[in-house]
């Protein structure tokens, strides 16, 4: 073989420095996120919450189920109870920490499962196209024809209350939108020339999906899924509030909000604390996904 380095001299000059500094895609996203204060703060808050929740059994000051009537409904800051106590005299901070576990779990699990299932189906539909696409998308249309809360409530209602059923029904609710988003992202990626040229090398469909499709569609699908987390958190706590989620005494924010409600006249701040937790979490997830979306937009 001849040496491949015999090149015309006039082109070698073109190797002047490119328009931008050398940087990987994710590194670029990272640096953009790092410059975005709001996203950072939200990420920070969520991280702190996450740690508090995960390590609740080790760091929570009290037993979440252990109360005492002698200290029921004490205000925020009362004698070693940083956030007061609930209607059965259990430490609010502790319960909020434990409650977060369930709220986060019930909020995030359906999105995660739906991300896996809906994402796969959507990518499949988008990549394979044709009849498969038709089949999957028409089925999706049917579930799209239900308002989401209604669907979740109806399925939960039919299945009966319980954490598992709540997760199941919410998963069913989130699968269709995830299919739609991943299908459209995949379809647009599939028609890009680089996928065509990968096909032109004779690569198998699996390799093409793995190397060329997945890395390019996961980002947008993931960001979309994070926006769903906020919806999911609210929906999950709503289901608990309706009694379709966890059972007492398991602390869960929606449930706590429900049982503490009657105390709103005597301890207004206390009674709104679980609501504030839901609000802040959902807000942070929303802002975080906004920030992520912005940072992942290569046009920036």
């Amino acid at each position, binding site marked *: *073989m*001849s*040496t*491949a*380095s*015999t*090149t*015309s001299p*006039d*082109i*070698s000059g*073109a*190797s002047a*420095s*490119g*328009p*931008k*500094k*050398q*940087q*990987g*895609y994710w590194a670029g996203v990272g640096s953009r996120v790092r410059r975005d204060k709001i996203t950072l703060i939200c990420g920070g808050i969520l991280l702190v919450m996450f740690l508090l929740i995960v390590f609740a059994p080790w760091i929570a000051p009290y037993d979440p189920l252990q109360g005492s009537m002698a200290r029921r409904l004490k205000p925020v800051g009362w004698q070693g109870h940083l956030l007061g106590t609930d209607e059965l005299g259990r430490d609010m901070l502790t319960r909020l920490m434990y409650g977060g576990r369930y709220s986060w779990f019930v909020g995030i699990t359906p999105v995660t499962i739906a991300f896996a299932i809906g994402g796969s189906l959507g990518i499949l539909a988008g990549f394979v196209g044709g009849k498969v696409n038709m089949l999957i998308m028409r089925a999706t249309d049917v579930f799209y024809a239900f308002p989401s809360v209604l669907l979740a409530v109806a399925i939960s209602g039919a299945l009966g209350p319980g954490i598992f059923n709540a997760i199941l029904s919410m998963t069913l609710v989130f699968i269709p939108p995830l299919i739609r988003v991943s299908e459209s992202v995949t379809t647009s990626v599939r028609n*890009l*020339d*680089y996928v*065509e*040229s*990968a*096909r*032109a*090398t*004779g*690569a*198998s469909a699996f*390799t093409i999906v793995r*190397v*060329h499709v997945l*890395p*390019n569609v996961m980002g947008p699908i993931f960001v979309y899924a994070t926006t769903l987390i906020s919806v999911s958190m609210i929906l999950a706590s709503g289901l608990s509030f309706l009694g379709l989620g966890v059972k007492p005494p398991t602390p869960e924010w929606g449930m706590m909000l429900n049982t503490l409600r009657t105390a709103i006249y005597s301890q207004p701040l206390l009674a709104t604390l679980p609501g504030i937790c839901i609000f802040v979490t959902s807000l942070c997830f929303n802002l975080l996904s906004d920030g992520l979306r912005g940072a992942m937009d*290569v046009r920036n």
Partner: protein
Amino acid sequence: MLQLPTMPDRGGPAQPLLIVKDLKKHFPLKGGLFGAGGKVQAVDGIDFEIRKGETLGIVGESGCGKSTASRLIMSLIEPTDGEIIFDGEKVGTSALPLKEYRRQVQMVFQDSYASLNPRLPIEESIAFGPMVHGLNRSRAIPRAHDLLTAVGLAPAQFAHRYPHELSGGQRQRVNIARALALRPRMLILDEPVSALDKSVEAQVLNMLQDLKAQFELTYLFISHDLNVVQHVADRVLVMYLGRVAEVGPVDSIFDAPRHPYTQALLASRPSMDPDQRRTEPPITGDPPNPVNPPSGCRFRTRCKIAEDVCASATPPLAEVAPMHQAACHANVTASGHSLAPREAA
């Protein structure tokens, strides 16, 4: 040094590298619930061949089916009809399975950005093909670096970059390197320079000429720029609305075009001389919609010499000069067109 060997020449020099026979592609139109939409006749029966070592240029206006033809040849889409024969073997048969064929034919697209995976460093993009064909990574990467050098990009500086960190010209070089990575015998270049600035266009064109010699390639070069085609092609094929209007050696076509469309196309070129500006547009109107193309000769709606026969019969590709064919009734003996040559004595 290059671990993937070139495929051997099977048919010998006289065997055209690629023969396209009656290739057709009709896209059904979307939107019809009951499939009642029409169809786009993007490519409607084209025949041509490419000889070993030559550059066949395809010109034609936007939407005439150039890209569709190249995708058909690349087997990226299923043809509605027709067949492709590569070096004497029908593509897709056991004699020439698709995967093997694809090693021998590669493609460069117009949009340099869309043809590179934005999440892969360019060395990975280039190494992808060889790895698909069984080369392991540790050998594919150095090979990618060699190819980068070959297209004039210093690997040390560029190998790890991502597509968005390159200029348009640099990206197009990467695309060319990627196409060469499988050591193909033929390269389909679908408007490889249309999106580039003039100064960069020249760089890439020069480089393509060098690479052709260096890697013993055959080019199918698609462009809508007549000047570029004239510059690079040995033979030229003019397409109009999914059909071949004229095909022949570059000089013959440019000096003595026989199809009114080719003539108009040539006459539409800016003059490059302020003192000899064009005064009359050679033809009027836009190309018609390929969904319901005109009957007979597809050019007749804009043709200055169109007659009744042009609407009723499709003109065959007829020899008008050595190696030069044109599909115009005016060139076909006894076609019924008033300008047609009389019956030979």
